[in-house]
């Protein structure tokens, strides 16, 4: 059987700078920041007291959860993931099955890092007090990593593979490749893919302790996330969810669905925590290998890539990432593609990052734009030594974008790179 072509027919997002696709599209076009001062982090003596967290309008959750589910819902990752996932499904024009029908052609791969930490914290206190019975029936389903794919699966009635992947900050991008593989190989017609990440001090605290967060902009939250900027000194933690409906081209055409873009393919690998790689730093050889593998898998000529949505967290590793892209693609200076980092507006949404950023990438293809990098008016000299400044726009520009690359790199020295193409029927 020949390989199936895979297209994107639905998008959903619950991001710090926009809940829902239309608000998010406006936000990335205009450079609206979702990073705010967090009093709770200040009260707890965090070094970094700013973060990105979606603002959920009152009354919105009733669309996604039953009153019983809402009563003790304390897993923010499930909240964000359900909004993004259900929205993507609806956006694709797909329906929720009735009580007696299972859709065996549709599956879910929805990743996360830690799920339901707030719920888990309460469970730990109750357990330690000898009140284990008080945990009720919702502790397990809100704290198991696969809680998000389970909530989505139950809502939608999906009967194909329903699972959760986890690969730190690569999670969201990896889920797309995993769902793509399933459709390419004919195992599923449709896959809802994406990632979500809880918000809050128990998620972000460990990063604060590692001293990888920016502590210098507590009084200027919107200026806090500074990927590629000369004085970047740490990332701003974020949270949220992004979701995409992947579908075989055949199925999408049959349904007469709106096609946002084509997934050309991608690659995933690990640097083995060898050479320049470690638990927390990527092996540059492996990063370049991953990008080259993605090119080979998709037979895309590196010169045809119009724009890159980078990982670019602002920890000080941005120049290394730019060098890796430049060497892997064999492009530099004026010949380098456009490049941007959504994290300048959202912070680093961890396991959700790759999926929210891919949603932004698909919107770039749809609207023919490259969204501007915020807080990037004094680019690091090691970056301008490789890339012409006009390739790093700090305001949104409109161009014909045909092929876009997205990569994410995570703790554990894991990498994923995806390539997307504007759909031309």
């Amino acid at each position, binding site marked *: 059987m020949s390989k199936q072509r895979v297209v994107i027919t639905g998008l959903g997002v619950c991001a710090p700078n926009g809940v829902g696709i239309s608000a998010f599209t406006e936000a990335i076009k205009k450079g609206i920041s979702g990073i705010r001062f967090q009093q709770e982090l200040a009260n707890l003596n965090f070094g970094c007291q700013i973060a990105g967290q979606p603002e959920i309008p009152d009354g919105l959750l009733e669309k996604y959860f039953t*009153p*019983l589910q809402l*009563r003790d819902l304390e897993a923010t990752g499930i909240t964000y993931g359900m909004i993004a996932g259900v929205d993507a499904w609806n956006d694709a024009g797909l329906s929720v099955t009735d009580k007696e029908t299972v859709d065996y052609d549709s599956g879910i791969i929805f990743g996360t890092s830690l799920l339901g930490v707030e719920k888990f914290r309460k469970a730990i206190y109750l357990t330690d007090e000898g009140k284990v*019975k*008080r945990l*009720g*029936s*919702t502790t397990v389903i809100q704290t198991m990593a696969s809680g998000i794919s389970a909530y989505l699966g139950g809502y939608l009635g999906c009967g194909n593979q329903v699972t959760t992947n986890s690969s730190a900050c690569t999670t969201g991008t990896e889920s797309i490749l995993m769902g793509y593989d399933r459709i390419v190989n004919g195992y599923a017609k449709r896959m809802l893919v994406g990632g979500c990440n809880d918000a809050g001090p128990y998620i972000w605290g460990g990063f604060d302790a590692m001293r990888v967060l920016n502590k210098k902009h507590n009084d200027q939250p919107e200026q806090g996330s500074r990927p590629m900027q000369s004085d970047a000194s740490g990332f701003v933690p974020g949270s949220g969810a992004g979701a995409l409906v992947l579908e075989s081209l055949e199925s999408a055409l049959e349904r007469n669905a709106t096609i946002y873009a084509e997934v050309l393919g991608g690659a995933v690998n690990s640097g083995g925590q060898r050479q320049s790689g470690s638990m927390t730093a990527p092996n540059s050889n492996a990063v370049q290998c991953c990008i080259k593998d993605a090119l080979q898998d998709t037979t895309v000529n590196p010169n045809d890539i119009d724009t890159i949505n980078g990982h670019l967290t602002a920890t000080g590793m941005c120049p290394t990432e730019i060098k890796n892209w430049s060497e892997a693609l064999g492009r530099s200076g004026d010949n380098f593609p456009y490049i941007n980092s959504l994290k300048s507006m959202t912070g680093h949404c961890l396991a959700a990052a790759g999926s929210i950023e891919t949603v932004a990438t698909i919107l770039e293809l749809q609207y023919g734009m490259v969204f501007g990098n915020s807080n990037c008016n004094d680019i690091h000299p090691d970056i301008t030594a490789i890339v012409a400044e006009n390739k790093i726009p700090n305001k949104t520009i409109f161009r014909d974008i045909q092929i876009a690359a997205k990569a994410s790199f995570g703790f554990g020295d894991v990498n994923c790179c995806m390539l997307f193409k504007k759909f031309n029927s």
Partner: protein
Amino acid sequence: MNTDNYDALKTIIKIYLPEDVSVDDITPNSHLINELNINSANLVDVVLDVEDHFDITIEDDEIEKMDTVASALEIISQKVAK
């Protein structure tokens, strides 16, 4: 039957009913799982709500006997009387 307790129990049960079961379908003889279609996993939550509302403690062997509305009310009234 203590109607105050019955009404309170109905209010507790209401949120656990699936969409196709109405609070008006509840009768003293209703079986919680087989007739009211309450998810069996949620029975532990019903018990917690009952404990909180009536300020009582229900033991594991008593939970097993709470299969209908009436049997639940009987256990509640015994406990409340103590």
